[in-house]
């Protein structure tokens, strides 16, 4: 007998978690879209943002709005500084240079967080009720609703930004062709900085939402590993792709955890999205919404 209630529960949980993955993947896509750099430290960005907010609340007793403001401001500054100090120097270098630089950055951040703020898990309290919202057969933790809402809000905001605003159009021009954009009088480097700062914003929000859900410690950065299947499935340079990819990954991992785990003894959650990703890479290497690249010599 097929258990419908169990299925719907997995479905709703998958969708909400998936949207929360999308939020983090959004940061990844923004940077890739504008600067062609892949950010292997996305999970660490989220972790650092979580640390800042959690420590501001717990150790300094800051009210929530102030802590969030500090987190946002800190991550924006961090994004600008990072572009200025590290990534600008790597423009025009081979792919592996940028990949390795962000992997190095990930190591630095993973060491820096616990070194400065201690290795213990910190809680990040938000004024959201603990009791799940009951909707017929569904039990939905409110934090997941908030996370999914924030994610959708930012999807809309960034879509508007890229389609309508002057800066967003300039950033698309930079992403499309840096040299032509430069010739048109666009300050390319400033937009690179802006893209990293936007990633900082998204990471800060991701850090708050995920930090509340999982608690803040080094393990929080593992969320970053989930980003890769999301962006590969959706396409590395597509904002709607980040949302769709996030939904797919969220659903697949919840279904796998619900239906396959009992047979193989757990762990499929972290494994199934990657299998799906490999298949997607074979069939459609540039993702569902990604732009196929035509190579010339």
């Amino acid at each position, binding site marked *: 007998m097929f258990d419908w209630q169990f299925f719907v529960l997995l479905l709703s949980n998958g969708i909400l978690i998936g949207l929360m993955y999308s939020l983090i993947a959004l940061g990844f896509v923004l940077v*890739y879209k504008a600067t062609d750099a*892949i950010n292997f430290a996305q999970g660490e960005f989220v972790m650092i943002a979580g640390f800042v907010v959690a420590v501001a609340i717990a150790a300094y007793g800051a009210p929530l709005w102030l802590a969030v403001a500090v987190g946002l401001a800190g991550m924006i500054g961090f994004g600008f500084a990072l572009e200025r100090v*590290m990534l600008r*120097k*790597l423009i025009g*270098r*081979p*792919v*592996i*240079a940028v*990949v*390795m*630089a962000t*992997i*190095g*950055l*990930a*190591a*630095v*951040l*993973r*060491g*820096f967080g*616990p*070194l400065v703020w*201690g*290795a213990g898990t910190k809680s990040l309290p938000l004024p959201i009720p603990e009791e799940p919202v009951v909707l017929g057969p569904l039990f939905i933790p409110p934090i997941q609703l908030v996370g999914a809402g924030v994610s959708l809000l930012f999807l809309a905001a960034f879509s508007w930004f890229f389609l309508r605003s002057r800066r967003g159009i300039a950033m698309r021009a930079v992403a499309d062709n840096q040299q032509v954009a430069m010739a048109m009088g666009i300050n390319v480097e400033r937009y690179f900085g802006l893209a990293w700062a936007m990633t900082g914003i998204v990471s800060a929000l991701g850090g708050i939402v995920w930090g509340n859900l999982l608690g803040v410690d080094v393990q929080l950065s593992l969320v970053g*590993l989930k980003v*890769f*299947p999301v962006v*590969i499935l959706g396409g*590395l340079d597509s904002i709607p792709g980040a949302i769709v990819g996030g939904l797919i990954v969220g659903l697949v991992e919840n279904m796998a955890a619900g239906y396959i785990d009992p047979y*193989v*003894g757990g*762990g499929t959650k*972290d*494994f199934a999205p*990657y*299998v799906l*990703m*490999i298949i997607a*890479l*074979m069939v459609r*290497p*540039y993702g569902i919404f990604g732009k196929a690249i035509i*190579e*010339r*010599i």
Partner: protein
Amino acid sequence: MIHRESGLLKTSYQADMALYPLPIARWSIAVILVLAFLIVPLLLSDYYLSIINLISVAIVGALGLNVLVGYTGLVSIGHGAFMSVGAYTAANLAVRLDAPFWVSLPLGGLMAAAVGAVVGVPSLRIKGLYLAIATLAGQLIIEWTINHVTWISGGVQASIEVPRPSLFGIQISSQRGMYFFLLAFVVLAIVGVMNLMRTRVGRAFVAIRDQDIAAEIIGINIFRYKLLAFAISSFYAGVTGVLYTYYLGIANYEQYQITTSIDYLAMIIIGGLGSVQGAVFGAIFVTLLPIVIRIAMETFGGLLFSSGALLNIIPNLRLIVFGLLIIVFLIVEPEGLNRLWRNIRSYFRVWPFAY
């Protein structure tokens, strides 16, 4: 007598192709070999030999990864997993079939080569960032499989104990014995890569790295050579895994996680991509780094911090220094330690008469 070269005086192809064209280079190689085989094992204590043994294992792995990343230009974040494939293959062979190491070692390497080639299949269609992520997926999937299939991993804590390797009835169990055992493979690995790069295959790898579409147009079968690069590189990784397993006496997946893959990538980047010397320098540097940091913090850290704080500081400081070094080398000296070494050497080559 200080020898200096002047002019190109090669009269045969053989002389042109020589690995070490200058007498001084041949002499220094001889000196290094004498040092490595006679002086070092006689002078150093077991503790230092154990560090050198770790370096030896790392050199083999770094050389292999360099074939793929440095020479062929394909990124792999899955080498830790390929090592674990070699390690568990050899451990299973050694425990279940009582295979001696000279059987299990090449078989472990071949198994890793096969798995590596499969993981490398997407490299035909994708490259760069996408390939990096595909190999990352390979790493996670292999790790998960080994961890969850008890037939491979031996059940409890996914680790298998292996007997010490023996040769001609003599068991190699001391650090000094292990030193010679590993050193032999280091020499084999270095000679192997150096010669590989002089062959048609090696030239094809370099052509693919420099411009893969152009390489295809001049008649290089890209698919074959990319898979071959993955296979050769993974063979080295598999052998590294087997060597490490025999050295530790146990195969354990925790030694081959994603951080291991990153460590090896760091070695070849800090050492210098696409050079044998670079891989050796990088392996030495990255292996010594945590040891130096630990000793330094244990010696001087007590002046500033309490011993409880030090327990938190040492591993995190290692991560920070490690990451910073990768970034600094990428920005300041992309060709790594090998370039620094060349600069020093060419300075002294013309030393009193620099112009």
